[in-house]
């Protein structure tokens, strides 16, 4: 039976029966899970539409926040200012999910010619032109199960094998190559015309370099298809081996209550948490390299009406006080204080106080937000993001 004939039969039967049933208007809320990779975000950038619009995050995320368009039609990945643990931070946001309760790590294969457990990268397989063979993975960006959060594996090629022929994970399994787990790593696939900003890549406020590991590569392989990617660093998230589920941390979007009681974002830099909300978990950041941040859920942190973000240009006296104390005023730009603004006569605007910045109750760390605002003012959204930190504790993250 031809497909057209079958479809005709289908439609006939459907029409007859559904017409008799009636009352089938869709009244359910569409909560289908969504994933926006850089391919989708670039499309949204071109269309001028937000991504990840959900009931609890109704504005969604403006693609202009994630990508900076260029005049020639290309775009660069934006470095987003943030605060974490009371210090300036920055991150990139190459992927966004909506309505995902959890995401999982996927395997990413790096090809070797031989196994050396102490220094595996010394045996990277080379292609015929002498460069490292591109990595291979299996779950591409068209799947909702795609994840930029990988567990890197080393796959050892047979002696004499042509590394250029290994362009799918299927072949690794078919040939039963020896495979060794490495570490968690964040790689984001990208369209070829979405690039990193020109070097040096700097913190948008402090203008000092971010992590040197933030790099781009032109080739990886998924199902025999070449795809470019960003390298956003290793060991910047944790996961549970049971189910390979990635641990999430909160990414606080500071907000005030709107007229209807719903949160209205202040537009200030977000605050990256270091552990589950209210877990009081100390930040795990050995040698200044946070093991968190690459996967986060956006929470509204609803501050009082007096909350405001500090702008050193609007408060030159306060900026001068910071400079006098040896502090860079730019390190306070966008930092939100619960008492930054005077609303009633009894309020004291801390930005204008003579003992600034001590006069302010800052919302620049997970602990301070949770202590100041309490559970009723911390509202989870359906939106999660790949948000690897590239700047932490006031400086670019070093090494891998």
């Amino acid at each position, binding site marked *: 039976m031809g497909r057209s004939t*079958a479809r005709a039969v289908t439609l006939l039967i459907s029409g*007859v029966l559904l017409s008799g049933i009636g009352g089938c208007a869709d009244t359910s809320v569409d909560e289908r899970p969504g994933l926006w990779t850089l391919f989708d975000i670039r499309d949204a950038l071109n269309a001028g539409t937000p991504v990840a619009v959900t009931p609890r995050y109704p504005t969604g995320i403006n693609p202009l926040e994630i990508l900076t368009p260029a005049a020639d039609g290309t775009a660069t990945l934006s470095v987003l200012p943030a605060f974490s643990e009371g210090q300036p931070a920055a991150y990139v946001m190459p992927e966004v999910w909506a309505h995902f309760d959890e995401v999982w790590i996927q395997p990413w294969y790096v090809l070797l010619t031989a196994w050396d457990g102490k220094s595996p990268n010394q045996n990277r397989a080379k292609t015929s032109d002498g460069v490292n063979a591109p990595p291979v993975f299996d779950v591409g960006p068209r*799947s909702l199960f795609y994840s930029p959060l990988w567990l890197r594996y080393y796959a050892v090629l047979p002696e004499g094998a042509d590394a250029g022929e290994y362009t799918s994970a299927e072949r690794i*399994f078919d040939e039963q190559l020896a495979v060794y787990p490495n570490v968690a790593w964040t790689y984001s696939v990208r369209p070829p015309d979405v690039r990193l900003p020109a070097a040096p890549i700097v913190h948008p406020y402090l203008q000092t370099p971010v992590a040197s590991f933030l790099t781009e590569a032109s080739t990886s392989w998924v199902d025999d298809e070449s795809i470019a990617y960003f390298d956003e660093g290793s060991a910047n998230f944790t996961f549970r081996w*049971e189910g390979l589920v990635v641990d999430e941390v909160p990414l606080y979007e500071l907000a005030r209550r709107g007229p209807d009681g719903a949160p209205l974002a202040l537009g200030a830099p977000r605050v990256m948490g270091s552990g589950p909300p209210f877990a009081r978990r100390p930040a795990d950041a050995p040698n200044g390299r946070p093991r968190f941040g690459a996967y986060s859920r956006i929470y509204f942190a609803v501050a009082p009406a007096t909350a405001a973000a500090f702008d050193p240009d609007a408060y030159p006296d306060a900026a001068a006080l910071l400079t006098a104390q040896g502090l860079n005023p730019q390190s306070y730009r966008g930092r939100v204080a619960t008492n930054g603004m005077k609303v009633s006569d009894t309020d004291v605007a801390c930005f204008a106080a003579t003992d600034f910045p001590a006069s302010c109750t800052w919302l620049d760390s997970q602990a301070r937000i949770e202590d100041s605002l309490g559970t009723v003012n911390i509202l989870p959204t359906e939106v999660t993001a790949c948000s690897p930190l590239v700047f932490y504790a006031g400086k670019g993250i070093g090494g891998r």
Partner: protein
Amino acid sequence: MNRWRCRHPRLALLLAALAAARAAGSGQARADTGAAATAPPPPPARDPDPNADEEDPERETEGFVLPPGTNIVPPLTLNGYVDFGFADAGGNGTSFPPGDNRVPADYGVDTFAPAVNSRGDVASIDTDGRVTNGFLPRSVNIAGRPSFLLNVVNQDLRYQAQNVPVMAFVRLQLLPRWGGDGQGNVTPVFVEQAFGRVTIIEGRELFLSGGKFDSVFGIEYLENSSVFRTGITPSLFARYTTGTALGVKAFYRQQIPVMWSALSLNVAATNGSNFVEALQPTDASLTGVPVVSGRLGYELNLPSVQVKLGGSALKGTRNDQFSRQGLIEMFGADARITVAGLSLSGEYVYVDEEEGAGGKQTGAGGYPIASEFYAKGFWAQAAYALTFNGPLRAITPYARYERRNAWFEGFRPITVARVTAGLRVELWGSLILKGEFLFNQELAGAPSVENNVITSSVVYAW
């Protein structure tokens, strides 16, 4: 309505009692699917498709004298069978290749390939801790260890009212299983079918059914029962077409005697599709919108050759998620030819599921994502029945080839094939012995894995 029963209920009761006694004495193997309403199916060895008359009509007789050979069925009949088997699957009993850490584990392989019994249960679905997303069959949890299995304890209850054209049918199945490491023993009870059927017009093959009943899509559902299935394991497409569904259905068949032919139409509106219960809940509509399905069939019933052709279609909302925008569409074509003991049958199936919303719900639980999904392919089977007199009733060698191409959105399409070969032996009309080999092949997209199966089944019916 059956006229003679109506006029002479006492005689009907007497005849029914006599027939019941005769049936009990004969120990004839028979498991009524509810589709074959009154006449016991012919021995499967002589007709590998014993339930071929999908809605066998009430056979009406005139006067008080029954034609020779007329089989009287008592109002209440209890039939059933026990399916006992022994199976050995290759590797670890799954289709998951060692070292594969992709998530979800069930998207890149055919988890249904290592089937061991007529329900399509597989040797194992153990992913070694990896996340799955609800595309899994039921499992007997024997992994790669040879094991005896009590596949099904099946009990049918059928009641044909004496004075009204109504029939009720219930099929209960007990599935004794080891639940897996640390899970102990479990014996779920499945209400496989439970429906009432009304004969609308006397003398016409027009039936309306309501309840939980067999699929109307394709032909493989006709072999759901271990007794009726020629071989042991279902095809790679049974997961889409053989699940029972809850709703209403209508069947009509018009005989065309001058052409030795008949046309039939079987349509249903149900909670879900005819995916097996492991893949979707059947007992509630998750979207409030029924799934409609149907099959248009043609039969050519010559004295020596029987040909049956059909086209099936299904459309509605996926019942493994909550959005009315998540649609499912299926169509298929089937053919059967029976001549001189040789039975050829085959089916083509196409499945198209749009992405759903709000997580995925299956008969086995909840999962994260109702992914967009496609599948297509075919199976073809040949069986030749050698019949005998005496305790050995029939020997039927059979073989089946099938090829399935399927993909979840964003995942590499996989193509798998399977060759099934086996032998069926019937003894005394109530004992069926079957042995079967399954040669599974991963042709493309899925890593090759050791997942061939040797399985056997002994079916005793009452």
